Every structure is written in C-alpha cells, then in structure tokens.
C-alpha cells in the first residue's frame, strides 16, 4: 500500500467526511459560544454532501488499499443508513445540548468521527480494518456517553461503556489473532480461501470465530453480551443514546455480516446454529426484561437489545450457504426502519425530558394525549412500528426479515420472532395507555429542530409503511450478488 491508494475513488466518501470533520473542529474555534447551532448546521451540510459523494462513487471499482477495503453496494446501502442516523442525531441534539449546557463544538465532530468508524466497518475486507474501524467508532462514543459533565450517572455510563468496550475489543483482537494463527492471513477473502483449502487449524479457527462473535456481539448488544446496555443507555445523554442504539448497532452488524459471510462462509453450517440461538435468546431476553421497566430509557434500552435479535435473524437467514441477497436486503431494510422509528422515539423522549435524565419515567408521559395530541399521535405510530404492527415501516421490516428466515428454513426462529413481538406489544402499548388513558400534567418542550426531526421520522415511519417500494428498490439495486 502506498499513499496513492488513498486517492482511490472508492475511498472518497470516507475521506471527504473525515476532512469535513477535521476542518469543522478548527472552524468551530471561530464560532461564538452562544451560536454553536451554526456548527450543527455545518455538520448537517457535511453529512448531506457526503451522501452526494456516496451517490457519485457508486459503481466504482470497490476494492481499494490492496484489498483491505471493499466498498460494494452493501457498504453503500449502509453508508446511507449511517449518514441518515448521524443527520437525525445532529438535528435532535441542537436544542438538547443547548438546553443542558453541554453545547460545545467538538460534540458534532465526535459524531462525525464515530460515523466514519461505522463506514469503515461497513467496507472492511480485512480483520485489521474491522478492528481499527471499531475503535474509531467506539472512542468518540465513550466520550459522548460521558458528555453530561458533573452528572454522576453520565460519568458512570461512560466508564462502564469504556471498560466493557475495551474488554470486548480485547476479545476481538484475540479472536483475530487466533484466526490469523489458523489461516496465516487477516484478509477476509484469503481466510475463506484458506479454510476451503483445508490448511486451517480447526481448533484455532473455531476459537477465533467464537471470540470474534463475543467482541462484535458486545457492540451490537446481543444476549448474553448485553449487560452493559441498560446502564449505559440510561446514564448517557438521551441524544447520544439514540445515536448508540441505532448507529453503533448498525455498524456492528455490518461488520458481523461481512466477517461471517465472507471470511467464515465455508463453515457456515457450524456457526449458523450458534447465531440462530443467540438471535432467539436476544429476542426473548430483551423483550421479557423490557416488560418490567419503569424508566422509558431503560425500556428502550431493552427494546434495542430485542431489535438486535431481530436483525441477527437476517444473519442466519443466509442459512446453509452464502448470505442471500434477500436476507442481506432484509437486514438493511430493517435497519432503515429501525433508524427512523427509534430516532423518532428518542426525539419524543427528549421532548418530554425536562432537564437531562429527569422525567424519564414512563409515568411522566401521562396526559400527553390530551395536552399534545399531535406529539402523542406520533408516539403511537412509533410504538406501533417498534411492535411491528401495520401500517408502519416496522411491520414491513419484520415481515421482510421473518420471510427471509422462513425462506432459509428457520421456521422455529420466525416463530420465536412473532411470539416475542407479541410480548413486546405489552410494553409498547403501556406507553400508549399512559399517554391516553391516564391523566397527568406533562409538559413537552418542542423546539423547532426537534419537531422537525420527530415529524420527519414519524412521517417516514408511516409513509414507508404504506408505500415502501421506493425504499426497497434502493436496497434491492445496491445489494445484489455481493455475498
């Protein structure tokens, strides 16, 4: 690899965003303290222009840096998801960080750097890139989790996330080392070839796969590596939690699918049952634990664990061989749906939240149906979407992913999926009950940027639930014949 590689076409999106983030850090120094929203708008501009760069890069030769990265259609699909999530996060955070006196320029840059990490994970074609990208994603998130200075629970959240995250990274590195020991390479395609060639030491290989699963399982919060999630989600600033729960998860899944289906494809039959069981356990534990929560942030934390289980289902749905286009598109579509729905939901949580991390009880939503009918209606749509009921994008996503699972012969997993969706109906409906059927004096604070974010996500949740074809086409076109 030499410096000339860095100018390769396919690296332009990530390079562009990196440059933007770095320049933004400097530009921010000249933006007066009381007008930091300007930085926010500049960030949005950067994200939007990156999306345009991505659109113009599509179709270029995907392999770059001597085969270490491979930015194919799957990666592009995920880029759009990451950029969307980052943009919604920025929109949500403008009023939030101002209200909570944590308005500092580097907040936005940290979000951009984390987004770059996610993009790296989506295009990784080498274990080293997976690891580096994971760290680029994680380190800004550790900082962001502790961004509410002086609040003990925010500091606790950052500390926990950092310690456990470092631990998980260690697992991942150890796994990579074992796989390297078994196959003599870190390149995903070369690993696959080595396994097929029969040269790989099976004990090292399986040990390595297991440890990699632990490391990435931690990032996407699958059971039994999910223990950190509720505490971290509860303590972190709500807007950061929203970013974690969708962005970091999507990044983790991108890497997981790639590592499993590119590097370890020859031994699919051996690890697929493990993923299936992890998926089932995640859906079951996530949904059952969510039932008893009284804090909306904790409830949504468990809900996000449960959703990790649903997405993981697509990882199995490749089934007995290569990941089908069908399953990969299902996973991508589900992530889009989850992004819209979950970001909207967190937006409403922030509207009801008075100051950071207060008024986070589900009970604090009482009376919202009377006081803010539009906001409550939006929450109803979002809750139905999280449950997976029509006519919302959450339903189409679940339908897609369950169909993929049945297509691959995993009827039992689809059964677990629908039964746990039923369980989830109970706690999502409880929010609706509290809003409409109990009296209370909730006060919602809705600055226009927040309203815009909530409005856009809710409309998208509903509209793409009724006419999803345009969105489906993007996925179907980009993801075809990749795995």
């Amino acid at each position, binding site marked *: 690899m030499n410096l000339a590689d860095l100018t390769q076409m396919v690296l332009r999106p990530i390079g562009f965003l990196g440059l933007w983030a770095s320049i933004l850090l400097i530009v921010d120094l000249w933006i007066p303290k009381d007008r930091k929203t300007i930085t926010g708008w500049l960030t949005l501009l950067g994200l939007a222009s990156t999306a345009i760069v991505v659109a113009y890069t599509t179709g270029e030769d995907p392999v770059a840096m001597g085969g270490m990265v491979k930015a194919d259609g799957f990666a592009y699909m995920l880029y759009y998801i990451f950029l969307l999530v980052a943009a919604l996060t920025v929109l949500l955070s403008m009023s939030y960080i101002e209200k909570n006196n944590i308005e500092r320029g580097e907040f936005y840059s940290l979000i951009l750097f984390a987004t770059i990490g996610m993009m790296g994970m989506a295009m990784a074609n080498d274990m080293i890139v997976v690891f580096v990208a994971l760290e680029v994603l994680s380190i800004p998130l550790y900082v962001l989790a502790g961004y509410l200075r002086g609040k003990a629970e925010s500091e606790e959240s950052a500390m926990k996330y950092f310690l456990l995250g470092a631990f998980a990274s260690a697992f991942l590195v150890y796994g990579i080392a074992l796989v390297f020991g078994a196959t003599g390479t870190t390149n995903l395609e070369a690993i696959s070839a080595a396994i097929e060639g029969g040269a790989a030491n099976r004990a090292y290989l399986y040990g390595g796969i297991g440890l990699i699963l632990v490391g990435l399982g931690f990032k996407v919060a699958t059971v039994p590596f999910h223990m950190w999630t509720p505490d971290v989600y509860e303590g972190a600033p709500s807007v950061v939690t929203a970013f974690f729960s969708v962005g970091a998860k999507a990044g983790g899944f991108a890497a997981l699918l790639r590592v499993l289906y590119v590097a370890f494809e020859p031994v699919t039959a051996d690890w697929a049952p493990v993923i299936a069981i992890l998926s089932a356990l995640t859906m079951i534990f996530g949904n059952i634990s969510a039932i008893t929560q009284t804090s909306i942030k904790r409830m949504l934390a468990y809900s996000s664990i449960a959703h990790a289980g649903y997405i993981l289902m697509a990882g199995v749905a490749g089934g007995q061989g290569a990941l*089908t*286009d*069908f399953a990969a*598109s*299902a996973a991508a579509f589900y992530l889009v749906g989850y992004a819209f729905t979950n970001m909207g939901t967190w937006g409403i949580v922030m509207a009801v939240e008075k100051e950071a991390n207060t008024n986070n009880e589900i009970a604090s939503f009482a009376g919202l149906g*009377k006081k803010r*009918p539009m906001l409550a209606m939006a929450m*109803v749509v979002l809750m*139905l979407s999280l449950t997976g*009921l*029509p*006519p919302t994008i959450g*339903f*189409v996503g679940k*339908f*897609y992913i*369950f*169909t993929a699972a*049945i*297509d691959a012969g995993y*009827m039992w997993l*689809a*059964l677990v999926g*629908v*039964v746990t*969706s*039923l369980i989830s*109906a*109970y706690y999502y*409906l409880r929010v609706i*009950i509290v809003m*409409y*059927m109990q009296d209370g004096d909730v006060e919602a604070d809705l600055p226009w940027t927040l309203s815009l974010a909530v409005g856009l996500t809710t409309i998208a949740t509903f509209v793409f639930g009724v*006419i*999803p*074809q345009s969105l*489906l086409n993007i*996925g*179907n076109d980009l993801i*075809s014949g990749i795995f």
Partner: protein
Amino acid sequence: MFLQVLTATLTAVTFFPLLGVLVLLFVPNEREDTIRWIAIGTALITFVISLVMLGQYNAADPNMQLEVLLPWMNFGGGSTIGFHLGIDGISILLVLLTTFLIPLAMFGSWTGITERVKEYYIFFLLLEVGMIGVFLALDLFLFYVFWEFTLVPMYFLVGIWGGKQRMYAAIKFFLYTMAGSILMLLAIMWLGIHQGTFDVVELIAKGGIDPSTQRWLFLAFAAAFAIKVPMFPLHSWLPDAHVQAPTAGSVILAGVMLKLGTYGFVRFNLSMFPEASLHFAPLMATLAVIGIIYGAIVSYPQQDVKKLVAYSSVSHLGFVMLGLFALNEQGIQGAILQMVNHGISTGALFLLVGMVYERRHTRDMNEYGGLWTVMPVYGTLMLIVSLSSMGLPGLNGFVGEFTILLGAFGSEALGSNIYAIFAAAGVILAAIYMLTMFQKMFLGPVTNEKNKNLEDLNWRELVVIIPLLVLIFWIGLYPAPFFNLMGASVDQLTASLDAVTAVALR
C-alpha cells in the same frame, strides 16, 4: 391507472371514511355537534357508496367482481405483493352490514360520548376503513394489514371511552387477538414463499398443497380466526371487552368485528385448505356445539345485561361455525346469513341496553323490573329484538339458525346428526335466558323508585333502532334476496368442497 384505482368503487367504499377523518382534523374540538354531523355524514355517504357497489354487483357471477389490482411491493426475488380488492357473494353482505351499522352506532352515541368527541369519531371512522378492508382484501399481505389495523382504533375506543376496567379490557383484547394473528402471519409468509404468491385468488386456483401441510396452515389461520369469533375455549377476552366498551363499541365489536373471524374461515380456511377443512370439520363442529351450549348456559345467571348479551354472542357464533363446517350449501349460506342476523340483532340489543344505561347508569338487572309500564315503546322494541335473537319464526334469527341446522343435519362432512341435535338444544336455551332477562327487566310491578320516572325513547333513539327493526322483519319474512346475493359464490365454494369430500369418502 392510479386515478382509475382511486376512483374504483371498492377503493372508494374502503377509504372514503379517511376523507372524513381528514376533515375532522381541522374542526376545532369545541364544536362537538359539527364533529358529530361530519362523522355521521361521512359514514352515511360510505353507506351510499356501498349501495352503488351493490348496484354494480352481479349476483349471478360467482367470481370476484369490481376488482382493483395494483402491484404494491416486491421484496426482490420474492413474491410480489399486490393491492388487490374484490367482492363476491361471500363478502358483499358483510360489507353492507358494516356500512349500515356504523352510522347507526355513531348516531347512537350522540349523547353517550361527551368527552374527547373528535378523537372518538376519528377512531370510529378509522375502524370502518379497517373492517371494510378486511372484507375486500384479496391479497394476504393486504388482508393482514387491515386485520391488524382494526385492533388499534378498537383498542382506543375501549381504552379511552370504556367502563371502569377499561384499560385491562383493552389490553386483554389487543394481546389476545394479536396472539392469534401472529400465527396466521407465519402461515401467510410460508404461503408467499412456497406458493410463490400472496394473492388469494391465485392461491385458491393453484391449490396443490399436500394435505399434511394444509393441516398446519389451517391451524395457523384458525388460531387467528377462532380467537376473533370467538370459539370456545378462546372466548375469555370477549365478555371483558364487551362489558367495558362504550355502547357503540360493543355494537361494532359484536356486529362486525366478530364476523371478521367467521368470514376469515370461509374465505381462507375453507377455500385454500379444503382437505384440511374436511379433516378438521368434526373437531370444529364439536367446539361450535360446545360454544352454543356453553354460551347459553353462562348467559343465564348473568346479572349484568351487557354480559348476558356478550355470552349470548358466543352461543350465536357457535351456530355460524357449525354451519360453516357442515361444508355444504345450506350450512354455509345459513352461516353467512346468520352472521348478518347476529350483527343486526345483537347490535340492536347492545344499543337498547345502552339507552337504558344512559338513563340509569347501571346494567344490573335486579335494579330494573316493570319497565314495560314506564317505557312501553322501549319494552316493545326490546321484546321484538329479544325474540329475533332467540330465533322466533317470522324474524331474522330463525331463518339463519334453521338453515344452519338443516345443513348440519344433512352434512356428509360431519357424517352424524348428533351435532345438529345438540345445537337445536341451544335454541331452547336461548329462549330461556332471553325470556328470563325480559321478565326480570320489563314485567311485573315497578319495584325500584328510581325507575318510576324514566322517559321513553326519544326520536333520535328511534331513528337508530327502526332501520334495524325493518331488517329484522325483512330477513325474517322474505330472505330470498339475501340468499340470492350469496348463492352463486357459495355454490362455487361448495362444489370444490364436495369434490374433496367425494374423494375422501370414496
């Protein structure tokens, strides 16, 4: 093409209420009467559109008519999902029943609902969209969308405007019905993948699912429908939901929503899985008969009138199920007519109970007595509706139940008279509990001081009840037009079922 779809009769009848919702959103909350008129007007226009649909419908043609078909979504490689609506003899009466009952139920809740009026009527109109959609949808995905969607407005209607235990009842209703639906969802996805289409018409034409797989699919669909009907032993959500729901909610719940389940059995189970239907017919008929007897026996000791009517629904829907699983022409025709009858009679009963509840705010039968002398018009109407409900010849209930019993007697699929014999006992039991109720509430001297000065029905209440009464007599005395509407389609269905039966019995 898009405009064509939008203006098609079936699209119009399904989605017209949304227009009303849209208008209502812009009416200020305080103008309650305006809101009521807009909502009722919307429902009435929807009814008129459904009459236009009836005019365009050709009863002699057994196939789907007035079809609307638009490709909707494609998951890439998988089967295409279509926006497919259509009507035939099996669904037309149920659509008409829906559009007919909704404005009456809305008009009936004029004085009953005084809080959050706008939201109430919005949810009501949304409910109408969902229910009509269920009856018209011919694509499994679309059907499921409408099917699940009906839960949401009903959940709000019970949960916000219901009685004391409303939250419990609402969530129980929601989770119970969703529990059944999710199994159906799995079966729908399986069909889409393995049969290559979600289109109901294509699926029926294609057939060819091997019998052992059919049984699983049958059971998965049946889980959803049996809970909705509700069949014994899956009925326990019904009394709670009915007792807690506001009057109009109960009317629609009993009048239309329960029929979504029985309709599902005819449209999907009998048509798509004929072999499995034959296999499970004795089991379904047994459960139906148990439901008939059980519902009747449990109705008898109830003190709460609404609960009595609720349990009587379990009994009446048992008749419908028995007729369907007789798997012959008489049985199925009787069952479809009985669905309509039950909607009319039970709808009227709930409305009448609601009227006296608005006056006294109790539904305990012991609180009443001798009402006939105080409210003669009300008493007379109640008597007629009760008689209709228990199946007195000359009124609508008799025609349905009698045809069903005939069907069950001659059923080759059931192969035994024993079902019909036990079911007939249910008719007698119905007379016992209905007349006991009538006696307790209306006959004898006025014992309770509070009942002495009750006002008889006013013009608004009469306007609500009289259309129902007209139908009670019409169907009772001259049911031929109703049978004609469904005849051709039912013939076609039974012909295919007969073929299967003939093979099995050979």
